[in-house]
């Protein structure tokens, strides 16, 4: 089980990778969302505020009204934010569950695909 410090480190790297990727920023230019992440194996929850493709913050806890809620284990979140797993495979196996529109679910995976094309 990963703790909040590990998740924070993974999120920091993910935020850098996303915000420094010009192609992704252009692709997500019309995408402003609030995301909630829920660890199914611990009490940890965290949020992500995205404004026109830029990740503004990733605070602990549930902040704001979400557009998307993602639930999985803390280990899966860590691997996902480090780009070490393919989120779609986990999603299609039912190991990652998402609440949100189909379009947003695809956009979320597209982020991983664009910043880590080999994932």
């Amino acid at each position, binding site marked *: 089980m990963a703790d909040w410090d590990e998740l924070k480190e993974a999120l920091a790297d993910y935020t850098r990778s996303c915000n420094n990727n010009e192609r992704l920023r252009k692709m997500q230019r019309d995408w402003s969302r609030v995301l909630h992440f829920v660890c199914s194996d611990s009490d940890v*929850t965290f949020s992500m505020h995205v404004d026109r493709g830029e990740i503004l913050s990733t605070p602990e806890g549930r902040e704001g009204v979400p557009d*998307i809620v993602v639930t999985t284990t803390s280990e899966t979140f860590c*691997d996902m934010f*480090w780009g070490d797993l393919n989120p779609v495979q986990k999603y299609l196996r039912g190991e990652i*569950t*998402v*609440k949100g529109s*189909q379009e947003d679910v695809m956009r979320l995976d597209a982020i991983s*695909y664009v910043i880590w094309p080999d994932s």
Partner: protein
Amino acid sequence: MSTETTLRRSVGTAAATATSAGLAFAAIDYLGVVSILAYAPGATAAFAILVGGLIVVLVSAIFSELNGLYPSAAGIRLYLGRAVGNRTALSVTFTDMTTVILVIAADAFLIGAAVRHVLHEPSALAYVWIVVLLGVALAANLRGVRMASWVQTIVTYTVLVGTSVLSIIAIVHVGGAFRQPFNIFGSGSFSGIQAIAFALFLYAAFEWVTTTAEEARRPQVITRALFIAPVLIWIVSTLFALALAHLVPYGALHHSATPQLLLGTRALGTVGEMWMLALTVLTALNTFNGGFLVASRFMYAAARENNLPRPFAKLNMNAVPWVAVTSLTVVSAIVAALVFATGQWLMLVSVGAAIECAIYAIGSLCVVRLRARVTSDRPFRMVFAKPLASFGVVLFSALFLATAFADPKDSRRFSVVPFLIIAVLGFFATLYVALVVPRLERAAAARNAERRPTRRPPRPGTGPDEPVAGRVDELP
């Protein structure tokens, strides 16, 4: 952990019902009624649609239970995978997705034919209209244009109410003298069964609303939509069938790709014709919006899962899987042109109806198997699930055979063409899953072996090579 958070934008019962009814009620349904009339003449068509609707209640219960277990856009893959294995699930899903292409192609053809008919253009211009319509749909999809949920809801209810009102006006012309109300086996030994199977086609695809389960305000929203939408379709289809059967001679319907325009003209002259043309074009908004979205996102996910070649996951600058969307458009245009060239538009109804019956049989089988394997709680539980779902397997298999061997124009004849088309589709889907998918998976595994090292830093006290569950390198 609880995930019962309210989303900023979520789908309620009215919108989910509109989605379900909108997915089911496409332009091809007007032709579906003609196929029913071939087997159940006059007012008997209404009886067949009623029986079909009662059977659909079973389908609603089956998909409510499955959706409750796996409330996800990937639901069909999940419950099929758990019930019959991943390979079979893939083959079935690929075959099922061909119905999306059939419906898109059918709508492109039917709307092209309708516009050409109203403008009194030469028949060859239907090809131009097909290309124009699909071109516009392609451009809108590539630009990431989506119909807002409320627009989709208004469009669906406009189509349903508009068709009903015109049908009622047409029925008033008849004056209540309905002919042959219960002539259920009057067109051949199996005509009643085949009429009911074709009636099921009118409701087909209503269950695709389960792909929006992740947007639903509560799990019960999808269940309600699954039970309410068929009632709406039943009312509209019954009114349309009664009006058509009594105002337009079957001989005129038999050779027409635009029965709704014939009805409109008979009921209200040019105004009625334009009325039905407008509704036909509106149905395309739902088909092109929902159909392209469902099929292209499925292809994207399949490519990301290494079950389709990687180019299908390529995204354009609007985050749209452009290879998937373009391929869908090209294949739909080819199918639509083939249908137009051969004049076999009612064959689309037979093939679509048979595939849907097969999907319902497989859905029933999933309930039987998952009742034994998955004991977790679910928001909807069928009563008498095992006997009813087992009955569903037998019933929908029989209806599959009834439509797969039916000649959609002539109840006195059998045709193997629909069955052959489905067999070829299923054969290639199975062959692809058996031969190509393992290669794609091996290629993905080889890529992962050569890829960059794992980025996640090792935990203090653990080795750098310690495996972490769920990594990409665990691919088969």
